[in-house]
């Protein structure tokens, strides 16, 4: 930077010009509650479970790095007198979840029976123990607790 640049404050004016140019640009921010942005298709958000499809293999619970999925099941005889696994409990302790998606990855059914790609991230709540501890009912029907964007059914995001 030469002497004259310094005397004439060229760097100062250059900086001012730079910010001044932005003065009339459109803001890049969005106003959140009104203009909530829609997450991408693969966005890992709220859980959802399809109980019909689930084969009770507990692989998701095994693969979970922080063990927040709790599954209990028992055998029941169905009409054909065959053993059939029936879920007693399928709980996800969502308040500890880190949304890594390994449970979804581990699920062997096709389409997945547990998935996070529901495009829902507004999980704020006033009492986390109630609202963020999901039992089967809440997993399959959480739209009463959490305001969903759209409930993406399995696999659509893929």
């Amino acid at each position, binding site marked *: 930077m030469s002497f004259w640049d310094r*005397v*004439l404050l*060229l760097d100062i004016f250059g900086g*001012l010009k730079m*910010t001044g140019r*932005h*003065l009339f640009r459109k*803001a*890049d*921010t969005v106003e959140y509650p009104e203009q909530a942005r829609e997450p991408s298709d693969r966005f890992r958000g709220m859980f959802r479970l399809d109980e019909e499809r689930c084969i009770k293999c507990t692989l998701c619970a095994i693969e979970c790095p922080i063990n927040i999925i709790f599954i209990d099941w028992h055998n029941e005889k169905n009409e054909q007198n065959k053993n059939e696994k029936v879920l007693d409990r399928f709980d996800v302790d969502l308040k500890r979840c880190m949304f890594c998606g390994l449970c979804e990855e581990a699920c062997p059914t096709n389409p997945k029976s547990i998935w996070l790609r529901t495009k829902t991230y507004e999980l704020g709540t006033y009492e986390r123990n109630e609202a963020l501890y999901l039992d089967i009912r809440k997993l399959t029907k959480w739209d009463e607790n959490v305001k969903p964007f759209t409930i993406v059914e399995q696999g659509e995001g893929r």
Partner: protein
Amino acid sequence: MDISEGVLNYFLIPAVKAVVVVILVATAAGVLTYIERRTLAFLQVRKGPNRVGPEGIFQFVADVVKLLTKEDVVPAKAQHFVHFLAPVLVMVPGLAVFAVLPWGPTFTARIPGLGKITTAWYAADLNVSLLLVLAITSIGIYGIILGGWASNSKYALLGGLRSAAQLISYEVPMGFAVVSAILMARSLSLVEIVEAQRTHHMWFILPGLVSFFLYFVSGVAETNRIPFDLPEAESELVAGFHTEYSGFRWAIFFLTEYANMITISAVATALFFGGWLRPFPNVGALSFLDVIPGVIWYVLKVSVFLFVYIWFRGTFPRYRFDQLMALGWKTLIPISLANLVLVALAALDGFRGLRILGAILWVFAIGAFLIVTRLRASKKWPQGAGPAPAGARAAEA
């Protein structure tokens, strides 16, 4: 009318003016906080506060209400009295200065019940008003120092110390810059300085280019604004001298900072930009501009400076303490002295001398700017150049 002329002119009108000034200044400072946040937001491609009222215009009301109702926390081991006194010491001079700011010329109004009243757009026209401004604004420093010391916090203490050194140092170039304006106008009264610019047929920015620059830079330093906001330097001293203040005492510090910004801008306008005068006050062809009253001109000019303040804040990093001192003592003060001599010599010759000085300064500045930028036009900033790989010892990949 029952009210005598004396009571009216020497008691009632000044009292009303004083109340109006205080209210207006407090409101203006509040509005300025909103404007600053919005402008800064626009500079930073975001939106800023826009929820309270239309476009967020009442944001400052909400802020003030919040601050007034907030708990006032005083550190247990603070010097309680001084801690309490500091915001007062800051606020009173900050408001008192407004008494002498010349917002507009005299005007005549007919008020029902009082008859025809001739008064001015300022509270008082002291013949030493410029001295008063300088004297009173320096009192505010005590509030900052005492507030920093009384909080019994090291960050606050450091902030107070910084501000003591900084404000005292920058009084000097500021004073010299003001003196050059006094030399041009041959008066200490702000009103007369403004009027002198009419009789001189030019704004004093012409011969006072350097003076104005010095005044404004010192003014930014005086008001603790970026790039000179060391006393409160958020990323270094948490919040500087007002670290331990909360609630409305903090609000007083905060609002006074903005009031001081208005003061500095207003004085700059009066000294160098013709106060309430329209551009080229003696060119008859532009007389249609007189439609806009002087007050509006004044406010417009002040707003420009306030915008520059905000613009600075949105653009620059912060100086370091020693660099700030070096800038003040080693750069600004010598320049201001040289400038003072220059202006004094020109002022000896009166009107003509000032014109010649102004012409030389501007031609020189614009010419140099054009030449240098033209030379620069081919090569932009040496982007990302900096360190050459010459000194590098390469390790084989």
